[in-house]
């Protein structure tokens, strides 16, 4: 017997990251903008999506893959507003590419401009998993405290947009929007922030405009790229 050391030097998530990159490229070609929404449980991801669908009406087409450990409660809320597939993970604390692919099969051939992936409520594990999204949005509600970004650095580092929800509760809770944004910017200086209240509709127009502009940039950059080749 002899021993041999085999050098590898590979990120163990690289096959999953490649699958995510392939999905992103495919959806870019089809003009579908994928948004991965992450937060702790109860931060208001589903309410934000309901408000988004109501704001757009039929103006922009959206579809949703929504992840939970159990029940189809979120899908029941969202289905009347947009094509929605509930993904239940049993016990898993985050979504991974195979579940996304299964959800897309269930969704069927979709004509949509936006695909929202509502991740499992968890500020830890979903941070490590690229799901092929063009934009990662972290949702933080005013009841959670403005000190959270620094406590969950990977989630805020890997997100491009911070949505602060439940602004109607600001008079009742010790939460400073400025402090939360400043804390997030220490970790992700480029993070864009929007404060919203899904119930009153405050900030929802701004949020929707941000999404529309981001999708327009994706389409323009795809077409520029195509023109060069």
């Amino acid at each position, binding site marked *: *017997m*002899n021993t*041999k050391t*085999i*050098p*590898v*030097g590979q*990120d163990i*998530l690289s096959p999953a990251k490649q699958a995510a990159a392939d999905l992103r490229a495919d959806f870019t070609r089809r003009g579908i903008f994928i948004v991965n929404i992450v937060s702790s449980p109860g931060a208001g991801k589903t309410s934000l999506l309901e408000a988004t669908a109501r704001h757009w009406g039929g103006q922009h087409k959206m579809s949703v893959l929504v992840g939970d450990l159990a029940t189809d409660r979120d899908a029941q809320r969202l289905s009347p507003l947009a094509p929605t597939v509930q993904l239940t993970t049993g016990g898993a604390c985050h979504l991974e590419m195979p579940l996304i692919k299964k959800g897309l099969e269930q969704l069927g051939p979709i004509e949509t401009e936006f695909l929202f992936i509502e991740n499992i409520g968890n500020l830890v*594990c979903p941070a490590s998993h690229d799901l092929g999204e063009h934009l990662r949005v972290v949702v933080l509600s005013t009841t959670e405290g403005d000190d959270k970004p620094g406590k969950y650095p990977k989630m805020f580092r890997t997100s491009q947009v911070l949505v602060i929800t439940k602004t109607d509760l600001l008079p009742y809770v010790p939460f400073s929007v400025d402090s939360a944004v400043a804390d997030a910017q220490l970790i992700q200086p480029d993070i864009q922030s929007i404060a919203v209240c899904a119930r009153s509709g405050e900030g929802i127009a701004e949020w929707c405009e941000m999404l529309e502009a981001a999708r327009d940039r994706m389409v323009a950059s795809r077409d520029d790229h195509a023109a060069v080749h």
Partner: protein
Amino acid sequence: MHEASLVRTLLDKVATLLKEHQGEAVEEVCIELGPLSGVEPLLVQSAFEMLAPQYSLSDAKLIIHEIPLEAKCRDCGALFEIKNFRFRCELCESSAVQVVRGDEFRLLNITIRQAVDNEASA
């Protein structure tokens, strides 16, 4: 807790490598974890010990190298360590910093046992 799912991915990869190299057993698995890898080394170690037998890798010992989080400044080019998740250049205070190391769960190498090959026995 997603350490178990990542360790399964690691063990899959190790088992594949062992087969590719026609080894008999894996002695050591060396990985690198940084502060932004999203996993806790102690939990990775216990998940590895728990799951390795399922991949017929009971003899494998996991060696974890804990590395610092390192970044490069896009403005002044400085290479520096990020402490306390403060993403600012330590020389010029720029916020245009790119993480270069410490944000992945990397498999560095594996050490396998092989039957004495023909060359050696010849």
